[in-house]
């Protein structure tokens, strides 16, 4: 799959990544090369093969529905770029 500059812009937006205009051709070339490598897997017949999502054939463990965590909001918010009154601050969303 050869990706165009338009493809890169679309993917970058889906991934919420700002890519500088000057870097787009480089990403288009690199990503196209990576996809060409990936597409080698099309040479193998996988009809009827059960997809493998995970290395273990075990089911997800369940636990009792009990509160196990304590409130550490203030502790965790020390790493936040901007907070106010215990809230995370972002640019205005609703005018």
């Amino acid at each position, binding site marked *: 799959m050869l990706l165009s500059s338009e493809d890169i812009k679309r993917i970058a937006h889906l991934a919420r990544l700002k890519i500088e205009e000057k870097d787009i051709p480089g990403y288009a070339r690199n990503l196209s090369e990576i996809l060409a490598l990936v597409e080698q*897997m099309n040479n193998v017949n996988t009809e009827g*093969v059960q997809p493998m999502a995970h290395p273990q054939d075990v089911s997800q463990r369940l636990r009792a529905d009990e509160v196990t965590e304590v409130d550490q909001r203030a502790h965790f918010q020390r790493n936040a770029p901007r907070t106010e009154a215990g809230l995370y601050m972002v640019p205005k969303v609703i005018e």
Partner: protein
Amino acid sequence: MHNLSIKQLAEGLRGKKFSAREVTEHFLARIERFNERLNCFITVTRDAALAAADAADKRLRAGEVTALTGIPIAHKDIFCTDGIKTSCGSKMLDNFIAPYDATLVACFKRAGAVVLGKTNMDEFAMGSSNETSYYGAVRNPWDIERVPGGSSGGSAAAVAAKLVAGATGTDTGGSIRQPAALCGITGLKPTYGLVSRYGMIAFASSLDQAGPMARSAEDCALLLQSMAGFDPRDSTSIAREVPNYAAELSRSLEGLRIGMPKEYFGEGLDQGVADVIEQALAVYRSLGCKVSEISMPNSGLAVPVYYVVAPAECSSNLARYDGVRYGYRCDNPKNLTDLYERSRGEGFGAEVKRRIMIGTYVLSAGYYDAYYLKAQQVRRLISDDFRRAFEQVDVIMGPTSPSVAFKLGEKTSDPVQMYLSDIYTTAVNLAGLPGICIPAGFHQDLPVGLQIITNYFDESRLLNVAHKFQQEARWHLRAPSVIE
């Protein structure tokens, strides 16, 4: 003192030949002397290390010794360390002070180890040369113009240069084994689910696994003993009894069936590396092992599958870096979308952005079946190759890396060439199996690593097979001259 193994250091500490404070000061002095040249560390935790050493001495005096009391180690900067910067090699987390300890970090604290610092790594563990780190490349102690491998390059170089006795690493596609090979040390990637991933910054959650890096299999066994075990905080942690890894180390290898996948010796393998691996297999023959050629027909597809699965999981995992709750935030965002896009665009390096975009693409509407589902199917075929192989043989052996350490900058402009450094390691992660890399000899004065793979949860055997070789061949005792 830095030439002593973990086992010897532990014996010396218990026998009062030296104190934990003396050991710590000795290794900190080495870090001070050599780190500028090698760039192994992102953070050196001098004061905390000395305090931990004093606490260790107190316990030693009181006779309350635990497994690793006073042993100097380092953690890869991917593990959360309470109150200490945890950057994951990224500008995105340059200002991040972890608010809690990873389970593995807590395990080492309980075992009494003294942590000297946090080691350099490829950004978010994405790389095979340590050159994607925001903090600059690590240099290989065997030749400082060459890469140490990656992503656990700082840990590998620090162990090789004897700046620490052992270190932790993580391995998503070869990130413990490949740098171990390139730096001439021993590195073990455990079975998926053996070591807790809680507090280990996620890259690809179905592949990531933490493991020990040290100068011998015997030392790796001691470190693994303190890392392995069930953790209710990791939903993929497996509840099963942890064996005593040191107990089986010296077991005879008489009659051991070794499989040599012919696909691991084909195109792309440097002849000098192939020769060293052949010689290593001859050592195993002399120990009574039976070496036979096997076939793992889907081996060549491991890298293509890996570069769908790992980026897909990475694009989901790295969605959490939004410039809102922690980490880097851009200046003067115009609106919420601008905040997200610029914080991520400015905070992540080029390789991380490439992988997020590949992952986003293969998971996007219209491409999911052709890429992601297809990759999961081929992943099953690769895993089945191993299952069939282990019906015929006890262990699989081959090269860890197709070449010795390459020059800094040699592969940075060509991501696909860089990815092919991992042709022999990624399949092990896709299947979730354990693998170890041990020094097997030298080519052009640079170390070559032998990769050994066993069946699920058979780390005891893996360490036994590695240890017996090291008792015989002793390549692991060679040290680079730059650090003397």
